[in-house]
């Protein structure tokens, strides 16, 4: 093998990597918050909305789930300026990622809502709860608890998917890697390090969610 692995150059650029990592974490956190809220709203609309609202919700979910993320990001990236909206690349990336996550979250949450037996709802009706009260107190918490694992898996996938934002020049971890690669020509080493960092992030994120589960659904 006429190739000598050289990780030193990569580690010398660790500041750049850390900056990228910080942005990845920020992007992940912001997207999860907005994506979850979008998903919740769309799921509620899909279950309780008027006929047209339901159709709109289904259309949104199907369009997003049947097209690639990178194309969605390009559409947002080029589409916003064309209607005169100029935003920073972090915001654009968040918007694109949140719209994407929202569709997947909506499917998951909708399944959760529909898994609550009608008898629970009837108990709420018989006690005189309004529909909003039934949703808030009887349906929502058990529904989220039921789909928590699926939802958390989706969030981890989202964190990994933030790497795609590198293609619209969002300076997250993967983008930082490609910059270092073009500077040091240590292609393989750079991406090995990046891969390991993502893997570590994925593991840590899962552990974080497991802890959060115990805190939120204390039983």
């Amino acid at each position, binding site marked *: *093998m006429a190739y000598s692995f050289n990780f030193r150059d990569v580690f010398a650029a660790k500041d750049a990597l850390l900056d990228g990592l910080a942005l990845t974490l920020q992007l992940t956190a912001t997207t999860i918050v907005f994506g979850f809220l979008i998903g919740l709203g769309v799921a509620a609309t899909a279950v309780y909305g008027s006929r047209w609202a339901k159709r709109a919700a289904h259309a949104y979910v199907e369009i997003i789930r*049947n097209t690639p993320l990178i194309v969605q990001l390009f*559409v947002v990236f080029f589409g916003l300026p064309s209607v005169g909206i100029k935003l920073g690349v972090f915001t654009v990336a968040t918007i694109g990622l949140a719209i994407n996550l929202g569709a997947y979250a909506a499917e998951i949450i909708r399944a959760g809502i529909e898994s609550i037996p009608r008898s629970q709802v009837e108990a709420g009706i018989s006690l005189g709860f309004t529909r909003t009260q039934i949703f808030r107190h009887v349906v929502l918490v058990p529904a989220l608890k039921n789909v928590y694992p699926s939802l958390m898996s989706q969030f981890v996938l989202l964190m990994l998917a933030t*790497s795609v934002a590198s293609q619209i020049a969002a300076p997250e971890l993967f983008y930082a890697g490609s910059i270092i690669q073009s500077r040091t020509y240590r292609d393989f080493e750079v991406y090995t390090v*990046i891969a390991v960092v993502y893997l570590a992030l994925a593991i840590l994120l899962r552990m974080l969610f497991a802890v959060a589960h115990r805190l939120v659904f204390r039983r």
Partner: protein
Amino acid sequence: MIRDLSWIDPLYLVLALRWTLGLTVLALLGGAPLGLIVAAVGSMHRPAARWLARGYVGVVQGIPLLAWLFLFFFGFPIFGIEVPAWLAASFAFSVYASGFLGEIWRGAIQSIPRTQWEASVSIGMSYVEQLRHVIIPQAVRIATPPTVGFMVQLVKNTSLASVIGFVELTREGQMTAAATLAQLPVYLMVGALYFVVCYPLTTFSRVLERRLHGVR
């Protein structure tokens, strides 16, 4: 030199779909056998084997697909092998697919009742024979809807092969967008083409799912 968007551009986009689908097929050809092995190892009664399979799945699923693409793209030259983008992409997607398919199929195998294992081992079958003749035939029904669902994921994910220069639908779109500066219409067309391919598959997967759980 910037040119205008013309009627022939959508045609080129549609033609580029064949590379998208071709890459998907290659990913399945490589990923399915590997995934089967992962599923088989992951269902063994030995904890060490299961641990190994779980580790493989965890690593494959825990690394972004873009990273896998770049690792294979830059990895081959290290051994002195120059590979074209499509081959590197095929390897990357095969590994990626094996991690997800392996997990789906392991889940399906796991859902077969223990009694089936007990019955087949009692007539002297080996582990592989049990899998081949008793367990997998039953698991196939359960595994089909999520497998079809994953194929949709694969088709969408081939879009990332554009990043290492493989000319499939997304890359064709990027080149057209750069040449015409009509980025929004181009990418909307690209999205629509993916939708046309993926939506029927998604619907099919749902039909399969309903047939699986409805008919009892």
